[in-house]
């Protein structure tokens, strides 16, 4: 355990001296929090002057059951909230990908992997250290920015709309599915960076895990996908299953001999 801690602290000491990583971990959450708030403020402002002219414009079938019993303006806001809550599923994927992709390949580039692997650290300890080092900032940043989002929303929207934000479905998504997605991203990035020699390529390849999330966001924004409890639970289950497979594969693919000699 002591060695895992050493690796985690070492990873943070090193990785947070990298500007790209700092940007991803610190600024992305801020931007992703500010964006929905600005949108909410904008839609809130519209309410008074345009409520009549806008009325009826979002067709009922577009929002499905989302808006039953809501005024149309509230409905637009709930819809916006839902849309942006999806962004908080993006954060736990993007941040760890940046950190983890850097972590194995970066060591290879600096040739620090060989002395590291020569110490009595086990593969599991090493990977656990690197994974946790990527996981914690991702989850913390996601939760912090979600907290910030909820807090600012409280000032902007009315109580009815606000209650939608604290819907158990979203809490489940942010606090359970988010971390599960982080594990997916971390193990994918470790698998890829064990095989690739350039951190930029590793990061780009790892970023592929972001694609399904973005597709879901797009699907949701055009009304093709309505995220409901059932969907979130299915998503969580599938991610958990995928994680088990990916973690297993990442540990088994990380073979010292290969990693040291297959330096292409």
């Amino acid at each position: 355990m002591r060695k895992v801690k050493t690796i985690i602290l070492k990873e943070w000491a090193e990785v947070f001296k990298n500007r790209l990583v700092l940007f991803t971990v610190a600024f992305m959450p801020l931007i992703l929090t500010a964006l929905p708030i600005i949108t909410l403020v904008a839609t809130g402002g519209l309410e008074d002057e345009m409520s009549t002219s806008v009325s009826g414009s979002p067709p009922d079938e577009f929002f499905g059951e989302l808006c039953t019993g809501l005024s149309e303006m509230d409905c637009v806001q709930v819809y916006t909230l839902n849309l942006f809550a999806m962004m908080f599923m993006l954060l736990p994927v993007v941040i760890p990908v940046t950190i983890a992709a850097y972590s194995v390949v970066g060591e290879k580039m600096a040739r620090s992997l060989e002395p590291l692997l020569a110490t009595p650290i086990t593969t599991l300890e090493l990977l656990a250290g690197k994974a946790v080092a990527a996981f914690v900032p991702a989850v913390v940043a996601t939760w912090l920015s979600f907290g910030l989002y909820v807090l600012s929303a409280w000032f902007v929207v009315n109580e009815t709309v606000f209650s939608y934000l604290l819907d158990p479905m979203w809490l489940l998504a942010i606090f359970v599915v988010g971390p599960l997605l982080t594990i997916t991203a971390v193990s994918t990035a470790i698998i890829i960076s064990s095989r690739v020699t350039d951190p930029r390529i590793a990061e780009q390849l790892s970023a592929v895990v972001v694609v399904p999330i973005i597709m879901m966001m797009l699907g949701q924004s055009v009304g093709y996908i309505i995220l409901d409890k059932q969907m979130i639970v299915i998503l969580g289950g599938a991610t958990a299953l995928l994680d088990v497979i990916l973690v297993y594969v990442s540990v088994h693919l990380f073979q010292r001999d290969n990693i040291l000699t297959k330096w292409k």
Partner: protein
Amino acid sequence: MIQTENLTREFDGKAAVDRLSLEIGKGEVFGFLGPNGAGKTTTVRMLTGLISPTRGTARVMNYEIGVDDIHIRRNVGILTESPGMYDRLSALRNLTIYAELYEVEHVERQVEKYLRMLGLWDRRLEATGTFSKGMRQKLALARSLLHEPSVLFLDEPTAGLDPEASKLVRDFIRELQGEGRTIFLCTHNLEEADKLCDRIAVFKTTLRVVEKPSALRQQLYGRQTVFHLVERADQARVLLEQLPAVKSAKVIDERLLIATEDPDRENPKLIRALVEADFEIRFVGELRHSLEDIYLQLIGQAD
């Protein structure tokens, strides 16, 4: 402390290390001498459990490689070919990380001990990215010693260092030797091996010779006498070979090459023997091999 038996490693079907069999005793400084691409680093990597052999076995401190790798890693120190420091972190931080990974009990004390010993204490807080090559190498040497390993693998410890830094590192290795550590020293520097090692292996994919430096030096610095005869060099060789003082006799290009323990004393006798047997001597000379000649000859064998 180190035994290898037919240790072989192939890359894509081509042997980088071929059937290496060695036995290295406790407290011995063993020079592993070979040119670029000889397979020195590959050998060290196998012996430290970093990569696995294609065939053959080896034991380090009685732990078998590929089986007890974690014990081997815990007990041996390695100076890797490139220092591989975390360049954004300070020298102190770098060593502290490794002391923790090596399960060192008194981390701060050990880190300070070796930083001081290698003259890096005053610069401990600087990022290693700003260090010169020599300082990095010294830091890497410090890193390999934090857990006080009794077996130490040094992969070209003075490569790329200026004469002063090289000397410092060599003196330091001598000190380690004085502490009774077993040292496996890879180098392509003959003089370094000669100065530091108890035994020297000349190696290029396969083992060419293993000798004490004195014996190797004899071979390295050994003087030979060349007789340019008018004719019948082969018969002269047969004649001289019978003399007890003659260690070896060869004919190359009609010239007779004779090696003796002490040419100054033996040469007059050889000349007399040849003259008495009616050989006509045109010219007698001395063949003095340079260090490099012999080394190149040794590694050139069987190529």
